[in-house]
């Protein structure tokens, strides 16, 4: 079994998966506490529109997905912050219109082939050295950014108004968080795909919240759950010839339900 670690594709998959899962573990805590799970789901599905623009124009779909997702993330934020529409309504509109755009553009694109499935369901085992390098460097940079603003983000998550009056630059910190979330989603598409990336952004934080009432412990446990599920998912999927993205999310869900039932039993 140990020989799987000697394969180049497996080393790339494990390294990228490990770094990305730790970052999604951190982001997940804030997504769960800020109750913006649907925003993550909306941005990831909107990314499909961005991917299809890349296919149509013949440029790297991840690049177009990145630009498109950032525009969508800030578009949702702008519309809902002006109070014209509720956030979930704005997400619903961007979510469905971007998916529709993606379906139409993919139909028009000459490169309609299995590649699109790689973006929808993830293709971590097929990741190239170049893509792995970009994913790891981007994620490490974002991780650094989040560490720098972590306590401010924590305060804003606790109460935005108090943080504002307490002298925190709420708008700036929220924008950095939104940007990090959009980039994490696009980078994570390679790992589990557009359809399942929201699981990676929600489940680790949700499971960790069941297990502790301390913030830094919650971040640590969330990262641990995310890392464990991702690494095990990649290995198990290779050994049993399963889809890696689906396997990772099934393992994440399993950990969540174990945490949920153990908490329920403890409270009983």
């Amino acid at each position: 079994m140990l020989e799987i670690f000697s394969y180049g594709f497996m080393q790339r998959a494990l390294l990228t998966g490990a770094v990305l899962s730790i970052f999604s573990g951190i982001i997940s805590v804030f997504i769960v506490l800020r109750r913006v799970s649907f925003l993550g789901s909306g941005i990831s599905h909107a990314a499909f529109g961005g991917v299809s623009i890349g296919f149509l124009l013949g440029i790297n779909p991840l690049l177009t997905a990145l630009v498109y997702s950032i525009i969508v993330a800030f578009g949702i934020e702008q519309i809902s912050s002006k109070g014209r529409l509720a956030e979930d309504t704005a997400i619903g509109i961007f979510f469905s219109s971007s998916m529709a755009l993606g379906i139409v553009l993919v139909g028009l694109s000459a490169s309609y082939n299995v590649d699109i499935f790689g973006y929808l369901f993830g293709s971590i085992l097929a990741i190239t050295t170049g893509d792995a390098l970009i994913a790891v460097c981007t994620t490490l940079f974002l991780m650094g950014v989040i560490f720098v603003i972590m306590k401010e983000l924590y305060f804003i998550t606790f109460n935005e108004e108090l943080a504002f009056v307490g002298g925190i630059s709420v708008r700036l910190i929220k924008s950095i968080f939104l940007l990090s979330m959009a980039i994490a989603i696009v980078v994570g598409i390679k790992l589990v795909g557009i359809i399942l990336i929201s699981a990676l952004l929600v489940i680790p934080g949700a499971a960790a919240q069941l297990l502790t009432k301390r913030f830094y412990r919650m971040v640590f446990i969330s990262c641990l759950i995310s890392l464990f599920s991702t690494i095990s998912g990649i290995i198990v999927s290779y050994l049993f010839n399963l889809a890696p993205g689906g396997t990772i999310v099934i393992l994440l869900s399993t950990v969540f339900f174990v945490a949920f039932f153990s908490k329920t039993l403890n409270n009983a």
Partner: protein
Amino acid sequence: MNAVEIKDLDVSINNREILKDINLELVEGKFLGIVGPNGSGKTTLLRTIIGIIKPTSGNIKIFGSIPFDAIQKGMFGYLPQSQKIEMNFPARAIDVVLMGIYSRLGTFKWPSKKDTDRAKEMLSIMDMSGHENESFGDLSEGQQQRVSIARALINNPRILILDEPSTGIDVVGQENFYHLLKGLQKKLSLTIIMVSHDIGTVTSYVDEIACLNKTLHYHGSPLGALNDAVIRRLYGKHVDIMMHTDLCEKCERLHSEQKD
């Protein structure tokens, strides 16, 4: 020195006029109560004073600074009406108190042992010693208010702003809470602005009262607010006000506690 100066303030939200022609001055160290019926603009006035809402016209000075600068100088300690904190939000009482110094610390710097000791001291002043490591969501509303005041005061603000702080606290708890505020005002030479819908209770504790219903109907000594003409202007009809006097049994209990 004036702690707050409000001149010709108008505030409209979504084209609806909420506050009109507000003029108010508050001297440093005074305890001001803002009262008025529901929807009278009390919370809007507080949120405009602390810079969350921008005025449509007019201006506000906090110790000579505009609200944004006052925030940057750490002048405000703020307690909102509702904190809407999830019960299982991962924050201990001491974590909440320490949030009050995050801005002063700057990015990528974490509270030191000295900061933690100061947070414990603030909790002790609020009579919350021994609750440091308890989850904030598990505390009662009264205890949460005390922790929140500790957070608001840890950065040595010059003005404490409270929006309906006694909501969700029982009657005895409310009286103890107001006594606590009065004590803090004297001990820390704090200027306090508190919004309340309970005119009867507030008049017993504040130095000045402002009666608001879109515009200021009265600003002055608390007893003046109980004038029937003021009450009629404020509420649009006659209202009987219940308040504590020296003969009140509850007050006697509190007076004897103070003597002890």
